[in-house]
């Protein structure tokens, strides 16, 4: 099983290692553009954290660092106490469930079943185990009925939920979601939120949808120009109008953050 035994080393630590530690993370794109300038972020097991920021803040770059799709120019990333290196990257990709923004990028197999089975099969699981994982993952997102359908026959909301199932089947220690609410109609939005809340997994959610962050994540950080500039309780953060304005974040018209505390 992926990552079940990380804490059981000889000197077993009294507290489990944080699910995610990003320390001093810097990244320059090959063309010289600096995207991240010393990002520090720690996420404890069971936490749900929103990474907020305007377009171009480096949110996607940070996300791609979390399972080694991009490698830091400086600093490091650890998952469950394991530092991300060339040797550990394959194992870490099994432990970080990354859900991309466009489900058409995430769902590349001919049927929903095959897609959800892709990760477990790559991990070399036996066939009956794969079937179990797929059934459970589809059930958790309420999509068990569509297992045999091709992904493009589903609505966007359904595809987004299947995309979440494709990483749940890998039983990851950490879920990383890129804009999980984008382009969804209000009821699909709510359904995806219900799925994520019911999962109760350690989650890092990249978004600029502030009410969605408030709904799902007790804690939020703001990434702006490649730095973490705020890290606090989401409700408090959303009530700090100056802070939001400084970083080009805005609440939607008619949304009153004071109602969150009521």
């Amino acid at each position, binding site marked *: 099983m992926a990552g079940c035994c990380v804490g059981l080393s000889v000197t077993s630590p009294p507290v489990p290692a944080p699910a995610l530690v990003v320390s001093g993370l810097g990244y320059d794109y090959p063309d010289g553009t600096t995207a991240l300038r010393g990002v520090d972020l720690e996420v404890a097991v069971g936490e749900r954290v929103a990474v907020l920021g305007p377009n171009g803040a480096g949110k996607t770059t940070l996300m791609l660092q979390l399972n080694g799709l991009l490698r830091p120019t400086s600093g490091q990333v650890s998952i469950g106490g394991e530092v991300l290196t060339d040797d550990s990257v394959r194992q870490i990709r099994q432990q970080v469930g990354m859900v991309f923004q466009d489900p058409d990028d995430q769902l590349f*197999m001919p049927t929903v079943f095959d897609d959800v089975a892709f990760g477990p099969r790559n991990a070399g699981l036996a066939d009956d185990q794969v079937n179990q994982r797929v059934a459970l993952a589809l059930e958790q997102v309420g999509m068990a009925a569509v297992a045999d359908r091709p992904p*493009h026959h589903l609505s966007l909301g359904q595809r987004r939920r299947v995309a979440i199932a494709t*990483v749940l089947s890998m039983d990851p220690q950490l879920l990383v979601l890129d804009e999980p609410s984008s382009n969804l109609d209000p009821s699909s939005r709510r359904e995806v939120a219900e799925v994520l809340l019911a999962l109760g997994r350690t989650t890092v959610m990249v978004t600029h949808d502030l009410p969605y962050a408030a709904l799902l994540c007790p804690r939020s950080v703001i990434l702006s120009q490649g730095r973490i500039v705020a890290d606090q309780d989401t409700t408090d953060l959303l009530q700090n109008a100056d802070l939001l304005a400084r970083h080009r974040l805005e609440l939607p018209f008619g949304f009153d953050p004071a109602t969150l505390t009521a």
Partner: protein
Amino acid sequence: MGDHQAGHDIGERLYVPGATIVHRLPAHLKLLAAVTTILVVVATPPTWLWAFAGYAALAVALVATAKLPLRVVVPRMVVEVPVLVFALLLPILGTGPRIAVGPLTLSQAGLWAGWGIIVKATFGVVTSIVLAATTSTNDMVAGLRRLRVPDQFVQIFAAMVRYVHVVGAEARRMNRARTARGFTAKGPRSWSVLGQSLGTLFIRSYERGERVHLAMLSRGYTGAMPTAPAAPDSRSQLMWAVSFPAVAAVVWLVVASGYR
């Protein structure tokens, strides 16, 4: 119509759902049976008229077994038209002894060659139509994999099947956006616009390819596609698959012995 409905790919439009033995036969067996049978037919000299009568009966039996209505099969045979045109030219352009047919004098060798092309092409087309109408694209991908077609080809084919409608929908949206701003494709002046749209579509598809690759890497992709183990072929499935080329081969042998 939304992109969702419009997005059905070509393979799905060709597939005619059914539960006949032809539908249920595993794709790799169907492919093998179709290819070997077509090889037998192609290896038949055009002068063996009785053999072609036998092949015609076999093709009719195949369509009937697959329960495909003629209104599905016949319109699809239109793909053969360019071949027919070429075949009809052969008797006129051919050399050697000529015979008079009505007002024309036609090349005898050309007549036989044209006839051979027409009957063989028709058999191949009918067999392919049945194959495509009874096999879903997903099964076809699995069948190619099972036949040990190099994995890169199968992966490219599978990606095409999966993404052809995504790219198609993108192209339709771009087309709509052009039309909405008063563009009509008329004459060479519109070519640069169409060319640029095509270029944009290519770049977008390329970038999507990169994103899909990232999503695959994220879930442990290392170059090979993991697949479910396939069920072994049952004896009766094998018998059905063998029967198609076997009948053709028997026809070939019987007629061949008649010509000795």
